[in-house]
């Protein structure tokens, strides 16, 4: 039985929200990860400040995306929700623990600045940023590999401790670090902090390579552990995979070229992540829980689906403009730092801890080298993508 158009539309909305959480929430978690890795207090002060100031204002609001994912899943696909929540009780509880700990760190760090507790809450906050995406990754890995039965008798440890699930967990952590570093590069650039731009550009490149490697590993592992999903990934979902690879390499190219255009750079990285999410969705089709529960069997009645369309419409009408307004205010404020005379006076006396170095334009010679290398890399990328396509054609 094929799922109805309504069902497919709600599933599409669900995956759009998941992608939004992966991007916005992922950038948050990644910020926490880079905070953790920034080193000692002296050395890590400048990157931490940038992370804090660029991601903070909309920070915990991003959990609302997660709430939407949960609510959409239980409303539109109740049996799948119940099965996942039962079988994967342990990793889900651990990811929840991470969310609460992050909240603790968040609330304390930004209000009680002078407390000695601040270091501790900072550490709690940063390590929670590792826990949450990792365990969410294992959940996705467990679902994709078809380890969640429709009526689990209790929590299933084996479901999320398979090689694929653990690899997916690491992949999620790396992807969060990657997306966050890419988002931070233009942020540093806009503030004229050349050293930080380079700092995050290097980290974005490294995280991109690691993410790519982990994605490759997971992909290979899927061929054994989840033949159905693997077959669809190399079949109908292949264009999405290819776009993701191309966008991922594109980001590395842009970073190499130092073309830190905020919109282009972020959009390319967002495409790389979002296409993976959509690819996962397409690869599972028409299953909610691969081979165990199909969309047609696990979908709520039409009345419920229609109500979810209404909610989605409301979100587009009200939430999107509101969110845009908040982002706009935040961005604008970043460019004009002070807000009162007293504030300005204090600013004059106490400069930020590490002032940005003056911007230095790359010399023409080094630019030529970079463009050439980028062209070579692009050629290699095209070849790599064609190689990925090739086995599919043979089949």
């Amino acid at each position: 039985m094929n799922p109805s158009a309504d069902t497919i539309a709600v599933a599409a909305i669900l995956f759009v929200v998941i992608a939004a959480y992966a991007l916005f929430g992922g950038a948050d978690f990644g910020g926490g990860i880079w905070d953790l890795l920034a080193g000692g207090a002296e050395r890590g002060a400048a990157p931490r400040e940038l992370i804090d100031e660029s991601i903070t204002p909309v920070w915990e609001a991003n959990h609302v995306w997660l709430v939407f994912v949960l609510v959409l899943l239980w409303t539109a696909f109740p049996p799948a929700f119940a099965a996942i929540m039962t079988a994967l009780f342990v990793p889900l509880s651990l990811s929840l623990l991470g969310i609460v700990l992050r909240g603790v760190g968040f609330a304390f760090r930004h209000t009680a600045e002078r407390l000695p507790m601040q270091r501790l809450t900072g550490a709690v906050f940063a390590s929670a940023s590792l826990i949450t995406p990792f365990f969410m990754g294992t959940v996705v890995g467990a679902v994709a590999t078809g380890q969640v039965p429709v009526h689990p008798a209790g929590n299933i440890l084996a479901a999320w401790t398979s090689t694929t699930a653990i690899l997916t967990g690491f992949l999620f952590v790396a992807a969060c670090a990657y997306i966050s570093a890419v988002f931070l590069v233009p942020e540093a650039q806009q503030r004229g902090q050349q050293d930080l731009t380079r700092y995050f550009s290097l980290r974005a490149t490294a995280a991109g390579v690691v993410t790519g490697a982990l994605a490759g590993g997971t992909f290979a592992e899927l061929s054994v552990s989840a033949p159905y999903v693997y077959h669809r990934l190399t079949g109908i979902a292949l264009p999405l995979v290819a776009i993701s690879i191309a966008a991922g390499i594109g980001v590395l190219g842009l970073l190499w070229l130092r073309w830190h255009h905020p919109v282009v750079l972020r959009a390319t990285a967002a495409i790389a992540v979002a296409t993976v999410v959509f690819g996962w969705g397409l690869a599972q089709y028409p299953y909610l829980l691969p081979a165990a529960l199909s969309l047609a069997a696990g979908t709520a009645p039409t009345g419920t689906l229609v109500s979810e369309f209404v909610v989605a419409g409301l979100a587009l009408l009200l939430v999107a403009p509101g969110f845009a307004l908040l982002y706009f205010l935040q961005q604008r404020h970043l460019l004009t730092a002070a807000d009162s005379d007293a504030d300005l006076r204090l600013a004059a006396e106490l400069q930020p801890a590490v002032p940005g170095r003056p911007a230095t334009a790359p010399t023409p010679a080094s630019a030529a080298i970079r463009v050439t290398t980028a062209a070579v890399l692009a050629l290699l990328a095209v070849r790599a993508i064609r190689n990925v396509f090739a086995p599919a054609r043979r089949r």
Partner: protein
Amino acid sequence: MGVFAMGAAVHILAVNPVPARSQMGSSLGFHIILACFGIAFAAVVMTAEWIGIKRGDAAALLLARRWSKVMAVLVAVGAVSGTVLSYEMGLLWPGLMGRFGAVIGFPFSLEGIFFFLEAIFVGVYLYGWQRLPPWAHWWSGLPIVVFGLLGALSVVAANSWMNSPAGYTLSHGKVTSVDPVSVFFNASTPYETAHMVLAAYMVTGFLVAGVYAMGLLRGRRDRYHRLGFAIPFTIAGIAAPLQVMMGDIIARFIATNQPVKFAAMEYVLTTQRDAPEWLGGILINGKVYLGAAIPAFDSILVGFNPHTQVIGLDSVPAAQQPPLPTLIHLSFDVMVGIGMFLFALAAWQAWWWWFHRRVLLTAWFLVPAAVSGVAAVVAMEAGWVVTEVGRQPWIVYKVLLVSQAVTPSSGVPVTLGVMLVLYAILTAISIGVPMIMSRRWRRETPAEEDAEQVPYGPLHARSRARPATAAGPRSSADGTDAP
């Protein structure tokens, strides 16, 4: 803390499935306090700002600014505990969500939208200070009030549905069609929503007023503290009599809609006319000890006639009667008693205001006023105990048993323990952070206050937020240290 006492009490006393119910109970009991601030605090803040702008009153404006910062902290903690709840719906009650997720999903989805909007406009409101013209800024805060109310309506509608399930058809245990509008506006929705919104205004108003009552008691009797007391106390004081009225109406509704719950609330053991109203008392083996009975008064309250028949606990088999009628009855008494006490307190101040146009400054008034907020919280928690324990053993009234809904997973006692510890920390933050902020406000120069950072608020470079006297090592300034 009342929350944990309640969690512990439910844990010790309740029958199966104990850990899951304890965890849900303590999570809800914690979140509901923050939710009250989400629903009602914006109205308090905006009243202060309105007075400040209208009368050019600096004290009122300062109160509004400071309260808005506290609001941001509470919204941030509330976002976290709200996320916890949406997880727990599935983690603890997969049997409910798997069967009826499609039915109660719609109100929850709406609530998600409204909370998102509320958080966004809290951010906009915080940005707007000093940047928008006064009245434009005031209007930018109005959506917080509206979306707070709509969010309360949505999420209470979901709880109401569990008391008055409607709007769906079942065949072979599977939901086959859903009418979201009937689900949302079920029989209990108007009563529960009105009751909860009024409770939110009372809890928020009395809690905030209580803080300033403490200040007044300590001799800080300037206009700032008197206004800080009067604004929230007035708002809560207006809600109090309405709540007493609403409580009376809702009790009669329960008597017809969920008679067994009502029987447990009022110790109506057998269906009878001339049912007495019990004040206090413990129910042991079908007899009430240590209680005072007003003859036939319960019948009068239900039907305005002493001969009104009131349905008793014996109308359903023992297996379908709620456990712990003593807990339900005493919680009900506590709620009603505190409600009356708060009403009396508000009436006293209203009387004084009518004739003297002043805030009462006698300790006889200020001491009870200082504890009025805590009392309001206790009353609200007791009310939730009544409605939730009173619905047992059903999770969806007369449709689904709690035991059919609970997770078969084995880890719940562990998560319960961890959650209780985390909630202790979150409580410390929700109370501790505003306290630290208030202590700092008294010490800091205005410039330093300008530069404070709050969640969702505008950004200031950290180093500027610290006073010029910072003699301590710089290492404590930013984030974490490598070990």
